[in-house]
C-alpha cells in the first residue's frame, strides 16, 4: 500500500514539474512579462510542495499506526473479556489476533479472539482509508497553494532554495535525533531497572549472575528476594573484567602502535611508509568477528596447550587470548593517530635539538614525544574507548561467568559480552534481566562518551598549540 502511494506521489510530482514549467513559460509569453526565475524553478517549486508534505505525513503516519492500532486492539480485547496479566501476554494475544486476520493462525480460536480479529480488520481498513484520504487532501491543498504562488510569478528560485536549505538542515538534525534516540532508549529501560535494583547496589555489587534472576513481579519483591536479586546484578566484576581485558590489549597495542607510529613518522622512507601504512591499517579494516573467530579457535587453544606444557592451567577462554587479539586489532588506531600527531610537531623543534648535538632517538625521546604527549595520550584514550566497547572478540573468546580475577590465564567476562548474552535468544520483556542489559549499555555509553570527550579535547588542544 505504502509503495503504491509513494509511486503515485512520485508520478504526480513529476507531471507537475512539466506542467509548472510549461505553464509559466506560456504565461510569460502570453502576458509578455519577465519571469522572476527560470521556468524550471517553477517546476521544482511545484514538485517540492507536492511531495514533501505528503511524504512526511506518510512517514509519520506509518511510524505511529501500528502502535496506535495495537493499543486500541488490546484495549478492545480486554473490554471483551480477554485476560492478560502483563505486556508479554498482551503482545501474544495481539500477535494471535493479527495472525487470525492474515489467515495464518491454526490454533483454537475462541469468540473473544474472533471478535477482536474482526475489529482489527475494521481498524486496519479505517486507518488505511483515512490515510489515503488525508494524503490526497494534503496533496490537493499544497498543490493549490503552490499553483497560486507560481501564477503570481513568485521568486521561485529563492523559494526552492529556501525549501532545499531546510531539507539540508533537517538532514543534519538526524545526528541529534540519533543521539536522542540512543539516550531515550537506554534511559527508558534503565530507569525501570533502577526502580527495582538500587543504583548503588548495582554500581558497587560484587557478584553478577543475571541467569539467577527469574521473571517475577517487579512491584512485589520482598526484602529477601531483593537481597538475592541484588547479588545477581553487581557491576564490579564486569567493569573489572572489561578493564582487565582492555589493559592487556593496551599492553600489546600501545608499545607496538606507538613505536611503529614513531618509526613511520621519523625514520621510514617514503617508499616504506607507502607500503607499510596501508598494510597495518588492514588490521583496522578486518571485521571484529574475524578476530573473534581467530582468538576462539586458534589463539585460545594454543595458549591452553602452551600452558599445559609448562604445567599451568590455562582456561581456553582466557583473558590473555581475548586481550592479545583485541590489542592487535587496536594497533592501527594507536599507530596512525600517533603518526599524525608526531608529524604535526614543528620541524623547528627537531632542528633545534639536532643543533645542540642530540642524536635522532634522543631528539624523539626528549623533544618530539614530550611535545606530542597530549596528542598521544588522546590517541591512547580513543583506543581504550574502542577496547571497552569492542564486542565480538570478547563474546567469542572471553568467558561468560563473571569472575573477579587478576589472573590473565583465567576466564573473565566483560560488559559487552553480558549485553549480548542477555539479549540473544528468548527475551522476557519487562524482566530485570533484560532491563539490566540496557543499564549496562547506558554505563558503557557514558564511559565511552567521557573517554572520547577527554581524548578529543586533548587532541584539539594539542593541534591548536602548533597550528
Amino acid at each position, binding site marked *: 500500500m505504502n509503495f503504491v502511494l509513494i509511486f503515485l506521489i512520485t508520478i504526480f510530482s513529476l507531471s507537475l514539474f512539466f506542467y509548472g514549467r510549461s505553464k509559466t513559460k506560456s504565461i510569460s509569453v502570453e502576458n509578455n512579462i519577465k519571469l522572476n526565475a527560470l521556468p524550471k524553478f517553477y517546476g521544482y517549486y511545484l514538485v517540492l510542495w507536492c511531495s514533501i508534505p505528503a511524504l512526511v505525513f506518510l512517514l509519520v503516519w506509518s511510524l505511529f499506526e501500528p502502535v496506535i492500532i495495537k493499543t486500541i486492539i488490546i484495549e478492545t480485547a480486554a473490554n471483551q473479556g480477554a485476560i492478560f496479566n502483563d505486556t508479554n501476554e498482551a503482545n501474544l494475544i495481539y500477535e494471535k489476533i493479527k495472525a487470525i486476520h492474515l489467515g495464518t493462525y491454526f490454533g483454537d480460536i475462541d469468540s473473544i479472539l474472533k471478535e477482536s480479529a474482526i475489529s482489527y480488520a475494521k481498524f486496519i481498513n479505517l486507518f488505511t482509508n483515512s490515510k489515503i484520504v488525508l494524503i490526497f487532501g494534503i496533496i490537493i491543498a499544497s498543490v493549490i497553494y503552490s499553483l497560486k504562488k507560481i501564477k503570481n510569478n513568485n521568486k521561485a528560485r529563492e523559494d526552492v532554495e529556501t525549501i532545499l536549505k531546510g531539507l539540508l538542515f533537517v538532514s543534519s538534525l538526524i545526528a*541529534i535525533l540519533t543521539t536522542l534516540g540512543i539516550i531515550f532508549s537506554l534511559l527508558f529501560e534503565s530507569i525501570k531497572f533502577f526502580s527495582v535494583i538500587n543504583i548503588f547496589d548495582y554500581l558497587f555489587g560484587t557478584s553478577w549472575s543475571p541467569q539467577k534472576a527469574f521473571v517475577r513481579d517487579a512491584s512485589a519483591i520482598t526484602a529477601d528476594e531483593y537481597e538475592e536479586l541484588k547479588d545477581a546484578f553487581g557491576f564490579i566484576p564486569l567493569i573489572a573484567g572489561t578493564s582487565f581485558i582492555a589493559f592487556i590489549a593496551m599492553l600489546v597495542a600501545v608499545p607496538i602502535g606507538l613505536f611503529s607510529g614513531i618509526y613511520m613518522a621519523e625514520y621510514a622512507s617514503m617508499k616504506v611508509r607507502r607500503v607499510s601504512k596501508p598494510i597495518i591499517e588492514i588490521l583496522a579494516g578486518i571485521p571484529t568477528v574475524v578476530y573473534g573467530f581467530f582468538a576462539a579457535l586458534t589463539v585460545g587453544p594454543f595458549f591452553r596447550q602452551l600452558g599445559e606444557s609448562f604445567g599451568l592451567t590455562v582456561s581456553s577462554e582466557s583473558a590473555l587470548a581475548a586481550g592479545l587479539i583485541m590489542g*592487535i586489532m587496536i594497533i592501527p588506531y594507536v599507530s596512525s593517530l600517533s603518526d599524525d600527531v608526531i608529524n604535526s610537531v614543528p620541524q623547528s623543534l627537531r632542528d633545534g635539538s639536532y643543533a645542540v648535538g642530540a642524536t635522532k632517538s634522543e631528539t624523539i625521546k626528549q623533544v618530539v614525544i614530550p611535545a606530542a604527549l597530549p596528542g598521544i595520550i588522546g590517541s591512547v584514550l580513543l583506543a581504550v574507548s574502542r577496547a571497552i566497547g569492542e564486542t565480538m572478540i570478547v563474546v567469542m573468546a572471553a568467558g561468560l561467568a563473571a569472575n573477579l580475577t587478576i589472573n590473565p590465564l583465567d576466564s573473565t567476562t566483560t560488559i559487552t559480552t553480558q549485553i549480548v548474552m542477555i539479549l540473544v535468544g528468548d527475551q522476557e520483556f519487562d524482566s530485570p534481566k533484560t532491563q539490566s542489559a540496557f543499564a549496562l549499555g547506558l554505563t558503557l555509553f557514558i564511559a565511552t*562518551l567521557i573517554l572520547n570527550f577527554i581524548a578529543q579535547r586533548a587532541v584539539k588542544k594539542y593541534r591548536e598549540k602548533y597550528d
Partner: protein
Amino acid sequence: MTKEERLKKRHRAEKRFRFYGLSSIVVALLFVIILVNNIFSKGSSAFMKTVINVEVFFDPELIEIKNGATEDEILSADFFDITIETLLKSYPTKNIDEEDGLIDLFTTDAEIEIKKAFLDNNNLIGKKINLEITASDDIDQLHKGNYPRDLPEDRRRISNFQLEIYDNFVESNKIDKNFNNYFFNNGDSRDPELAGIGGALVGSFYSILICLLLAFPVAVLASIYLEEFAPKNKITDFIEININNLAAVPSIVYGLLALQILLATIQLPRSTPLVAGITLALMTLPRIIIPCRASLKAVPPSIREGALAVGASKFQSVFHHVVPLALPGTLSGTIIGLAQALGETAPLILIGMVAFVVDIPSTPVDPSSSLPVQVYLWSESAERGFVEKTSATIMMLLSFLIVMNILAVYLRQKFEKRWN
C-alpha cells in the same frame, strides 16, 4: 667513561631505538600474515565437497511413478526406498548396525539429489545411472585430511567399519571432489555438508543496500549543510559535537537503540535485513559525514568565489561546482563506511539476526542472516565441518571488503583533483 665511549653508547642507543620501531612494524605485519594465512589454510577446502559415486537403479517396483510423469508428480513422489536401496548396494553389509553406518556416510539429502537426477531426465525408470552423491560431513572432513584417523575408535565419530568402506571407496576411485555448489546456493543447515552462505549473502546484500540508500543521501546533504550553509552558532556546534561522538559510540549501543526503537516501539519485523539496514545506516551516518565534510572542505574557496562572481546563487555555486568536485572523495568515504557496515556483527545479533534461517530471503522483510553473523553462528557450532565453512565465509567477507576498499582508493586516485 671517555668521550668516545659515551658517543658509542649513544649511537648504540640510537640503533636500538630504531630497531624497536622497525620490529614493531614487522610484528604488526606478521600478525596480518598469520591471520590471513590461518583463515585461508583452514577455509580454502570448503569450496570443494566430497562426493561418492554410486550406481542408482530406478527399480519400477520401488517407485510409484511411471516414465513421462509430470514434474509435480515427481516432486511429490517418494524416493526414499530407492535411496536406501542405492546406498546399501554400494557396499556389502552384514547387519543393521553396519547398514546404518553405511547410510551415514552419505548426506541426509541423498534422496533429494537422486530426485533431482531423475527430474533432469525422467525416462529413467528401469534404468541404471551413475550418480555422484554428496558425502556426509564426517567423510568430507576425513577425505580433506582435516580429521585425525589414528584416534582410538571410541573417540572418533567414524567407526572402523566406516573407515574400511571409505578406504575401499578410495581404492576403487569412487570418491571424488567437486565444486561445492551447496556452499553458495544453500541457506543455513544443521548438517555442515549442506550448509551454505546463500541466505547470508542475500541478507547482507539487502542490509547494505538499505544502509546505502538511507545513509548516503542524508550524509551528503548533512555535510553540505554543515560545510557550506551552516551559520556559526550553538546549534551548529551542537550538531558537530553530536556527529563526532556518534562516530565513537560502540556499535553494540546501536543494537540496543534498534531493539528499543525499531523493534519494540515501531514494531518492525525482527531478524530482517530491513531493520539491519536501518541500524547500520544510523551507525554509518556519522562515519560517512566526516570524510564527506573533509572532501567538501578540500575544494578551494576560489571555485565558490568564481561561481558567485559570474552571478550564481549560493546554491548554484555549491550544487553546480563544489559538490561535483567533492564527489570522488564523498563516494570513497561512503564505500569505506559501507565496508565497515558490512563487517559489523554486534548490533545485528541484538536485533535477532542470529535466528536459524534455512530459507534464502526473497525480500528485505524476510528473516535472514548476514555474512558476519553467519561467521559468529557457525563458529559456535561443534561440528568440525563448520570450521572450514566459517573460514571460507570469512574469506568471502574479506574479499568483498578488499574489493570495496580498492574501489574507494581507485575512485579517489583516479577522479580526485589535487589543488596544489
